[in-house]
């Protein structure tokens, strides 16, 4: 069976695109393909990943300009048809700006750019991105962002909770979700959310940076594995 193509979008200013390509390439039966922001062709990809970085220099607001790049028009269409789209860090910001996910990310509560290992609690393991995890499984995955403070109006937060759209929350090593285990001030410790249809996931932490032993954690692999099993139909 031919390898399944997974597209990794490259915006000017993306800086985790090759890390993501590398992580995707480490799985059998999938082949990463880089997709330039100015193109319109998704090149037969069965899933799209928007990588981390500083697309368009984060000018105006993180993700706000990338959202209007030519390739994003195709990605939005692709997502609306129900195909899987994963946004990591800046990719999450782009998904929020494009309206594929609800809410916004503002500057971290403590003003600092945070680059550190975090513990994530998998609060919904029944998505196509988390099927390889257990419910409430704790994952060690790093964050690296200045604007990861998730915000949404109360009615949106309630709706996210009600429809189990919150997928990852920041927790401590014992799995306690509290203000102390919240690195950036995100409402309800939200680290990652999924859309109602269940095919678009955005998260601030970097699973590609926790995808092999030499990086100190392999906990991010489950996310890619879940997704690739889904698109490969196994």
């Amino acid at each position, binding site marked *: 069976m031919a390898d399944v193509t997974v597209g990794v979008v490259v915006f000017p200013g993306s800086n985790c695109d090759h890390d993501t390509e590398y992580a995707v390439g480490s799985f059998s039966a999938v082949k990463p393909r880089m997709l330039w922001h100015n193109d319109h062709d998704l090149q037969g990809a069965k899933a799209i990943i928007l990588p981390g970085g500083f697309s368009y220099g984060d000018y*105006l607001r993180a993700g*706000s300009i990338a959202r209007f790049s030519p390739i994003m028009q195709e990605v939005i269409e692709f997502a609306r048809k129900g195909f899987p789209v994963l946004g990591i860090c800046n990719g999450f910001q782009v998904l929020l700006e494009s309206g594929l996910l609800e809410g*916004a990310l503002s500057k971290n509560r403590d003003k600092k750019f945070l680059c550190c290992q975090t513990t994530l609690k998998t609060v919904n393991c029944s998505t196509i991105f988390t099927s390889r995890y257990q419910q409430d499984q704790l994952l060690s995955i790093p964050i690296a962002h200045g604007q990861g403070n998730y915000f949404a109006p109360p009615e949106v937060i309630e709706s996210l909770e009600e429809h189990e759209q919150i997928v990852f929350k920041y927790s401590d090593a014992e799995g306690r979700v509290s203000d102390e285990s919240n690195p950036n001030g995100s409402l309800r410790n939200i680290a990652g959310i999924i859309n109602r249809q269940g095919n678009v996931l955005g998260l601030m932490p970097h699973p590609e940076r926790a995808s092999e032993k030499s990086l100190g954690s392999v906990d991010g692999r489950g996310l890619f594995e879940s997704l690739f099993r889904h698109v490969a139909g196994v």
Partner: protein
Amino acid sequence: MPYTAKIKVTLRQSILDVQGKAVEHALKNLGYHTVESARIGKYIEVIINEEELQQAERICNEICQKLLSNPVMENFSFELEQVN
């Protein structure tokens, strides 16, 4: 005659403005004890080449909603001035 749109984009009151907080603390450290708060927003100037004021207003509104502000966390306001 084109119009200059003078656009202000500000964070909603419910959003913590960490930059504003840092500036507020700096001002207090400088001895300005009557400074109560500081909030930072964006000022954007856009020249719109439209003859009619109404049309320039419509475009300005549209670009503010579409790109220049994020309605989830920001408000915007603008003034239009004719360019001579």
